[in-house]
C-alpha cells in the first residue's frame, strides 16, 4: 500500500497534509519551514482541491485558520518561532472557541529574530499556553521525518476528537533533513459536520456563534472550567511517550524531538562504557508524561535532561520526580545541536559522577 520515499521533513509534512484530506492551509513564508507552503502551492489544489493561500502575515494566517476552522473544515498553518509568536492572540481565540486545527512550529533559535538554525526555545510557549489566558494546545513532538508525516494525520484526529488546536512542535533540523518515509495512503476530503459550525443557519436550528467573548464572570468561569475538564480528559487519554532500554537502567537521558535521537546515541555510547542508561522521549509534550518519570524515579539514580534551549522541559521533569532523584540539565542554544559525546560527558559529570 504505502511507498517509501526520501523526503525532507517539511515536505513529508506537507505531503501528509494533502493525504490526510486537509481542506485548507493558510501561511506566510519563514525559514526553516517555507517548503511547507511551497510544496503545497505546487500540488495540493491540483490533487485534492485543498485551498492554499499565502497570507500577508502570520496574524492574517491564523485568523484565516480561525474562520475556516469554524466551518468544520480540516485547516492548518505552519510557521517558525517569530511567526508563531505573532499568531499567539489568534491561537488563544481558537483555543477558547474550541476549534479544531493544526499549527506547525518548525522551531528556530531565538529570542528575537535569532537564527534560522534548529532550536527548542519554544517549549514553554507551546505547552504552557503561549497566548493570553488559561489554555493548552495538544503538542506533538516528532523525532523523525516519518513522524513529521504521521503526526499530521494524528493531529487532525486529535483536533476533531477534542475540538482543540493541535501543535506539531518540531525544529529546523527535522524540517530540513531528508529521510526515508512511508507515506500513508490518500484519504478523501470529507465534511464532518458536528453541529456547531458556522456554515449558514437552516431554518430549524438556532444560529451558531463562534466566540471567545463571555462578558459575565460566572459564564467565563464556566467556560474555563469546561476547558480545564477537557484538558484533564486529554491528560488521561492521550499521553504518548517512548521508553528505550529503561528496564535495567540506572540512569536516564531524556529529551524530545530530534534531541531524543541524539540522546539515544549518547545512551549507546554510555552502555559501551558499561553504564546502564535508558532514554525517555516524550512524544506528547502536552499532555506531558509526568507519571513515567515519577515511576522511574524509584528505579534510577538520576536523569539528565537535554534540550536545545536554556532548560524548559526540565522544569516538567523536575515537577514529575518531585525531588526524589537528581535531575540535571544539558542544553545548547542559538541553533547549536548537541553531540552524543558532549551528552555522554554531561551525563558522566553531572549525573553519574554526582550520584556516586
Amino acid at each position, binding site marked *: 500500500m504505502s511507498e517509501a520515499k526520501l523526503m525532507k521533513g517539511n515536505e513529508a509534512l506537507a505531503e501528509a497534509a494533502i493525504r490526510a484530506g486537509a*481542506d*485548507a492551509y*493558510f501561511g506566510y513564508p519563514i525559514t526553516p519551514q517555507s517548503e511547507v507552503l511551497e510544496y503545497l502551492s505546487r500540488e495540493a489544489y491540483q490533487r485534492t482541491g485543498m*485551498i492554499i*493561500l499565502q*497570507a*500577508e*502575515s502570520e*496574524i*492574517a*494566517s491564523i*485568523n*484565516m*485558520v*480561525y*474562520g*475556516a*476552522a*469554524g*466551518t468544520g*473544515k480540516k*485547516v492548518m498553518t505552519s510557521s517558525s518561532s517569530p511567526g508563531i509568536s505573532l499568531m499567539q*492572540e*489568534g491561537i488563544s*481565540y481558537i483555543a477558547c472557541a474550541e476549534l479544531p486545527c493544526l499549527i506547525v512550529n518548525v522551531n528556530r533559535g531565538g529570542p528575537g529574530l535569532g537564527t534560522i538554525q534548529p532550536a527548542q526555545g519554544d517549549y514553554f510557549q507551546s505547552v504552557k499556553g503561549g497566548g493570553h489566558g488559561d489554555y493548552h494546545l495538544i503538542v506533538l513532538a516528532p523525532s523523525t521525518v516519518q513522524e513529521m508525516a504521521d503526526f499530521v494525520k494524528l493531529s487532525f484526529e486529535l483536533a476533531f476528537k477534542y475540538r482543540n488546536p493541535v501543535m506539531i512542535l518540531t525544529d529546523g533540523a527535522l524540517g530540513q533533513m531528508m529521510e526515508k518515509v512511508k507515506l500513508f495512503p490518500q484519504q478523501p476530503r470529507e465534511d464532518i459536520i458536528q453541529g456547531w*459550525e*458556522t*456554515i*449558514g*443557519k*437552516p*431554518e430549524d436550528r438556532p*444560529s*451558531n*456563534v*463562534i*466566540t*471567545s*467573548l463571555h462578558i459575565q464572570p460566572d459564564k467565563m468561569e464556566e467556560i474555563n472550567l469546561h476547558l480545564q475538564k477537557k484538558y484533564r480528559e486529554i491528560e488521561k487519554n492521550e499521553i504518548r511517550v517512548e521508553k528505550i532500554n529503561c528496564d535495567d537502567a540506572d540512569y536516564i537521558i531524556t529529551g524530545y524531538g530530534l534531541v531524543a535521537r541524539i540522546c539515544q546515541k549518547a545512551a549507546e555510547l554510555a552502555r559501551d562504557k558499561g553504564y546502564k542508561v535508558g532514554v525517555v522521549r516524550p512524544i506528547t509534550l502536552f499532555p506531558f508524561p509526568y507519571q513515567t518519570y515519577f515511576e522511574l524515579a524509584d528505579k534510577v539514580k538520576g536523569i539528565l535532561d537535554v534540550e536545545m534551549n536554556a532548560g524548559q522541559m526540565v522544569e516538567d521533569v523536575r515537577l514529575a520526580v518531585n525531588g526524589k532523584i537528581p535531575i540535571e540539565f544539558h542544553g545548547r542554544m542559538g541553533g547549536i545541536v548537541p553531540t552524543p559525546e558532549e551528552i555522554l560527558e554531561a551525563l558522566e559529570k553531572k549525573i553519574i559522577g554526582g550520584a556516586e
Partner: protein
Amino acid sequence: MNEKALIEEDHYENTNLRDNTIVVDENIVYQVPKTLKDADFHYCPGCAHSVVHRLIAEVIEEMDIQSETIGIAPVGCAVFAYNYLDVDMTEAAHGRASAVATGIKRVLPDKYVFSYQGDGDLAAIGTGETIHTCNRGENILIVFINNGIYGMTGGQMAPTTLVGMKSTTSPMGRDAITMGNPLKITELVAELPGTYYVTRQAVYKPNLVRRTKKAIRKGFELQKDKKGTCFIEVVANCPSNWKMTPIESNHWLEDNMIPFYPLGDIKTPDGRAK
C-alpha cells in the same frame, strides 16, 4: 382619496379594535425582520449601529439568504452583533474580521460572507488585513461603521477622528502634526484592483437609510458575481462618546463628518466610478 386613507377607512369599518383584529397579516406593512433575534439592542439610543444592523437583517430576509449567510463580528461596540443578527456568526479578534472572512469564504465560496467592523477595528489595528483582503479581491462584503471614535473603549481617538475633533486621547482636539491626519481608507481601498463596489453611505436621515439599505443589498447580491470585494462605509454617529444628544450628533455629523467623508459611490461594477 389616496390609497392610505382608503385602507384606514376600511379598517374602521371592518375591524374591531377591542379584539385587536387590526393586527392581521394583510394590514402589516412593516415589522421586525425574521432575521433579527428577539433581543433588545445594547446600543446607546440614537446610535447608527442599531440602524445598520436592522438594514442588514432586512436585506438578508428579503434576499432569503439566511441559511447561506455567515457574518463576522468585530471587536468594538458591535462585538455582540451575533446576539441580534439571526445568522451563523464568528466573532473575530480586534481588526482581523476580514482575514476571518477570507478563511470562511475560501472554504465556502458559494456562501454569502460579510464582516461588520468599526473604524478602529478596520482602519487602525486591522489596516493590513483590510488592504490585503480588498487587494486579493475576496468575494465578501465589508460593512464599515465610521463613527470617528473608539466607541467601545470609551471615546479614544480613532484613525478617522477629524482634525480638531476632541476625544479622550486628543482632549484639545486632534492635532494633525503630532497625531496624524484622519485616514480615508475607503478611497484607499477603492484604488485597489480587487475591490468591485465601494461606496460611502450614512443613516442619519430616512432617505439616506433607504440608500444605505440599497447599497447593502447590492453588496450582498454582487457576491454572486465573484468579482471582488464589496466595501460599504457608513458614516456614523456615536452620541455617547461625542457627548451629544442623538439629534445633536446627527447635526454635527452632517456639518462636520460629511464634508470630509462625502457620501456616494466611489467605485461601481459598471465602471461609473466617481
